[in-house]
């Protein structure tokens, strides 16, 4: 089947999630055409675009838009899908992908699934596996539309290289009157730190840290490991830490390779946001803390004693690398 992938660029480059999406698309296509589309106001160079061939794209379409608005990207993606007769359209399950996906689905009268964590099972119709109940289960959803829009979960699918260079061509799309109705007045990006939603390693801390003045060691450990920092809800509610660090049911859902939870009890609402992490480490002075039940590694001990030791060991490891 023909597959179209939304290749989201950021400052003229592609992030890892795009390589994952193209590799995924190649698998889904099963020999059909794999087309990647980049709709951006800051278009990557043709070389960068063509490099998507490495991950399996046959063709890369580029479409310059006036401003990087999700509505404009959705218009371009939907018209490209018609142009290439795409049966499956793939976006990343991130904020931008999830802003675009529904508009594309309506334009194409397509089925839609978000939080997708499997390649489609086409043995009997078309179904994909996705996370449901905030990490407490998985569901298999059968999609009956002729066209399907899939938002795939980042850090889930392997990047597969081995393809060749893709052809790059311009794509002129019809952009609707609504595309630029939402105007951006300012963007506030996390500076000098790894954004939590993209982090592969996360060091997180909770009320066990006693107060905001004690986060120095959390930040030091995170920076030595190259990790982002996160926190539990009460910590954000008390303004010990910025709100965008709050993970869990009512915060951000993350799926890093490593999640280190320090002084966090492991309430069910907290686990909802982090339980899909590949490796979970828990440091808590209470051996009965529920978090230990979902942990791979744990230390029953006082954070104020344990964390400095981890920092020392991380320094040693870093200097050896």
């Amino acid at each position, binding site marked *: 089947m023909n597959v179209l992938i939304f290749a989201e660029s950021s400052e003229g480059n592609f992030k890892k999630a795009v390589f994952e999406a193209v590799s995924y698309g190649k698998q889904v296509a099963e020999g059909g055409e794999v087309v990647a589309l980049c709709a951006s106001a800051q278009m990557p160079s043709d070389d960068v675009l063509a490099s998507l061939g490495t991950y399996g794209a046959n063709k890369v379409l580029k479409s310059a838009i006036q401003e990087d608005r999700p509505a404009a990207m959705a218009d371009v993606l939907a018209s490209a899908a018609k142009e290439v007769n795409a049966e499956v359209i793939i976006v990343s399950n991130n904020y931008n992908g999830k802003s675009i996906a529904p508009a594309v689905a309506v334009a194409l009268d397509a089925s*839609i699934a978000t939080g997708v964590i499997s390649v489609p099972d086409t043995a009997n119709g078309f179904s994909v596996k996705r*996370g449901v*109940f905030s990490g407490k289960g998985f*569901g*298999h959803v059968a999609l009956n539309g002729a066209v399907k829009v899939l938002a795939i979960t980042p850090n889930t699918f392997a990047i597969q290289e081995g393809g060749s260079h893709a052809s790059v061509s311009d794509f002129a799309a019809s952009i609707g009157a609504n595309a630029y109705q939402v105007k951006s007045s300012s963007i506030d990006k996390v500076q000098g730190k790894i954004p939590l939603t*993209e982090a592969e390693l996360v060091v997180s801390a909770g009320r066990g840290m006693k107060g905001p003045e004690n986060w120095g060691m959390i930040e030091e450990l995170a920076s030595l490991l190259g990790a982002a920092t996160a926190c539990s809800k009460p910590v954000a509610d008390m303004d010990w830490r910025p709100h965008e660090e709050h993970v869990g049911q009512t915060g951000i859902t993350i799926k890093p390779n490593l999640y280190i939870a320090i002084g966090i009890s492991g309430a069910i609402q907290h686990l909802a946001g982090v339980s899909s992490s590949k490796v979970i480490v828990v440091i808590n002075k209470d051996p009965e803390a529920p978090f230990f039940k979902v942990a791979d*590694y744990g230390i029953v001990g006082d954070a104020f004693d344990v964390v400095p*030791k*981890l920092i020392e060991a991380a320094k040693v490891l870093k200097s050896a690398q």
Partner: protein
Amino acid sequence: MSVVPDTTTKVTFTDNNTKFNTAGVQYIINPYDEMSLTRALELTEAQGGTVTVIHVGLADSEPSVRKALAIGAHEAVRINAEASDATLVAKEIANWAADKEFDLILTGRESIDYNGGMTGGLLAAHLGLPFVNVVSKLDINGGEATAVRDIDGGKETVQVMLPFVASAQKDLTEPRIPNMRGIMAARSKPLTVVDPGGASAKGQHQSYEMPPAKGAVQLIEPDNAAELISILHNEAKVI
């Protein structure tokens, strides 16, 4: 507004893992929808207007719809259809809303049960309205709104003219809880049940599975804390 299992629900599946086990489950207003509702009330209290709650669902969700009236919504409408997927829900709401003149339509960022996060965007597309996703701040001044939305790696402040659709993220406001007066007042507020327009679903959850069981935790003595770093490096290979 969607109605979902309480956040402390222990999730299990029945009928050979083809159904969510609703036995003993308490239902609540989706947390993000509580925030939308409260913000809508704050805006109308300051600037005039009314707040309508719309829910697609069967009669068993009516207690939560009543609760929304008790929190302060002026009226509620229930479209009497099973909310089998977001495609159906958004289409039903769009059909119903098409001939009404709302200045603002708020949804939640996602329902905490199926975590789809699609209904708001689908609805906006059906109605041909601008859509602002994952909004943690929303102010309206005359015919224009200013909103702060989450973007990958940060936040963006945007301006948009009314009417539009936005989806609520935490921090939008502190949700209100109903008081006795609100509960009494809710009894005489209109809760209209309307027939569905016949939209069909485009996705069906057919089976479920539990997350794989975790093996027992490997404990490291606090005195040997440094060992953790080498395990993560050599054994787990994550750092």
